[in-house]
């Protein structure tokens, strides 16, 4: 049994493409071409060289000595926070902008919640000189002002999503509607391993560079390719998909997925999709999502805007349902405390999304000689105000 997507884009019973007919030609064009294009020598060469010279890859695999000592196990950090623009998101946007060029598209649209994916998309559009429109919920625009300014400075147009709850899920709806209205010249750069097939698989492949590097880096440091565990936070699931990718079908490597519990799983303010979700359809994918008994999609909550999505990618839904992945949820308070701890112990201020992954060590115990790789998906610059307010640092 494989935990990768099959031909039709299913991970077990999850995935597929539940899209209106208006989107069929777009998704079909992508589906028919994405694997072939990604395997072309010219594509690989350009992708690899941009990842190296523009993004700054390979990112270090760093042995966190003081953190390891505290938790009595061997903890390595995969430093995606050192990527250009400050998070793993750019691995995907570089891949997709090259894909869009190969498909002859001259206009890019994207959705964004916190603005990280919006910035990563605006960045690659500036790099390539391609028109860029980013949809962002009206409420998120107000609470993520610095990233809105960054996108504008990079030349992107930021369009407010005014429908529904005016946050990430509605920004995604608006981007999809834009694609319906502009079916020929536009490519939609989706920001995580969500949406209709082939997006989850395509985005996972672009992010898979993370685990590809972990393998040889760990070989250099420990004389073995396989850690005992790989840990990552899961919003839609793209940094996690990248960190797990080359280990998915190797059951010697434990997979740990960390979700945002917000104020607590049963507080009514949470984003812990595996615990609270039921199978259904969101943004064209059959997966786990938070919803009412009547099937209306509900609004999640987390202090970290990047984990604030009511669904989870179909790969992760399958990792959960099959038991291949261990799912842990972490509250706002636990994550903030872990973020401060990492700052003090290792001199690294993590994005609050990533802080969730570090918080598990308080309760999830590992053996002393276990090798645990934590994907440090992003840096905390964007979250400084939240940290400052939370810890009353100013």
């Amino acid at each position: 049994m494989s935990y990768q997507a099959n031909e039709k884009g299913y991970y077990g019973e999850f995935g597929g493409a539940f899209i209106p007919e208006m989107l069929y030609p777009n998704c079909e064009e992508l589906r028919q071409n994405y694997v072939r294009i990604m395997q072309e020598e010219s594509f690989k060469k350009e992708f690899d060289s941009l990842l190296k010279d523009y993004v700054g890859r390979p990112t270090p695999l760093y042995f966190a000595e003081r953190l390891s000592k505290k938790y009595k196990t061997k903890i390595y950090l995969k430093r995606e926070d050192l990527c250009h623009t400050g998070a793993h998101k750019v691995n995907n946007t570089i891949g997709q902008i090259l894909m869009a060029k190969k498909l002859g598209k001259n206009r890019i649209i994207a959705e964004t919640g916190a603005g990280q994916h919006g910035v990563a998309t605006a960045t690659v559009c500036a790099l390539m000189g391609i028109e860029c429109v980013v949809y962002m919920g009206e409420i998120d625009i107000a609470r993520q002002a610095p990233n809105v300014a960054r996108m504008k400075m990079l030349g992107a147009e930021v369009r407010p999503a005014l429908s529904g709850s005016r946050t990430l899920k509605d920004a995604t709806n608006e981007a999809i509607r834009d694609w319906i209205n502009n079916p020929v010249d536009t490519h939609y750069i989706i920001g995580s391993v969500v949406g209709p097939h082939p997006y989850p698989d395509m985005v996972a492949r672009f992010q898979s560079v993370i685990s590809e590097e972990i393998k040889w880096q760990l070989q250099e440091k420990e004389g073995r390719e396989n850690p005992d565990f790989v840990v990552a936070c899961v919003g839609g699931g793209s940094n996690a998909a990248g960190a797990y990718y080359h280990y998915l079908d190797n059951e010697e490597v434990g997979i740990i997925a960390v979700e945002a519990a917000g104020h607590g799983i049963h507080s009514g303010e949470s984003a812990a999709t595996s615990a609270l979700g039921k199978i259904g359809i969101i943004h064209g994918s059959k997966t786990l999502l938070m919803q009412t008994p009547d099937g209306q999609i509900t609004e999640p909550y987390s202090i970290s805007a990047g984990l604030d999505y009511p669904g989870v990618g179909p790969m992760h839904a399958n990792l959960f349902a099959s038991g291949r992945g261990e799912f842990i949820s972490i509250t706002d308070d636990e994550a903030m405390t872990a973020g401060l701890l990492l700052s003090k112990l290792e001199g690294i201020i993590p994005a609050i999304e990533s802080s969730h992954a570090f918080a598990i060590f308080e309760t999830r115990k590992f053996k002393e000689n276990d090798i645990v790789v934590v994907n440090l998906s992003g840096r905390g610059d964007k979250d400084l105000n939240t940290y400052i307010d939370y810890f009353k640092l100013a």
Partner: protein
Amino acid sequence: MSNRIIKKLEEDKKLLSIYFTAGYPEIENTVQIIQDLEKNGVDMIEIGLPFSDPLADGPTIQASSTTALQNGMTSEVLFNQLADIRKSVSIPLIIMGYFNPMMQYGVEEFCKKCQEIGIDGLIIPDLPVDVYNEDYRAIFEKYGLLNVFLITPQTSEERIRFIDSVSNGFIYMVSSASVTGSKSGFGNEQTHYFERIAAMNLKNPQIVGFGIKDSETFQQATKTAKGAIIGSAFIKHLTEKGINTISDFTKTIR
């Protein structure tokens, strides 16, 4: 009894179909709107089951859906409201909704309920024809429901032929590449598309939707097609004029 949609399609006239969102503007309006539409000569009705995330719809229908959900509309409430609808209404009734609420209700349960009430067909924009054909067709047929598929100007000829082969009522012809309510008037591009589809001699008649808003667009669309569906323009009328002047709206169409 054979399906009301099929009988209606056999009539020698162009069909006017109207879409409205159940539970809008008020939760209790559903039955009255249906009855008034029939009284005013409408041939077929699409009852919109509101969804929180209606991907294929423009701002007008989205806003009506949001209000309807706030008013408390659900699958269960709608089925209860429609329980006796066949005592007063005889034109074809179609439920149009997204797949997730139907999945949560249970696809078979949902279809069974539709049959009990006297619903004739379903339009589920995000249930693709391929998935329907493999996984759900048998259930729909068991309960005598026609499933209506969409085609757009971008749909390939091969896929149109496939959709035609799976359909057994009519094909919902989306007038242009757009979400609902977003285009104003039809130009040459649409006319050519209408003619191109007409020339394919499909086994299923076509009914045009998206962008039909007045007598002119209705005439243009039904020059070649069997009928046309009005959605956003009717919702706007309900928003602006309320539910007691439906005849003022239908009179302007034909």
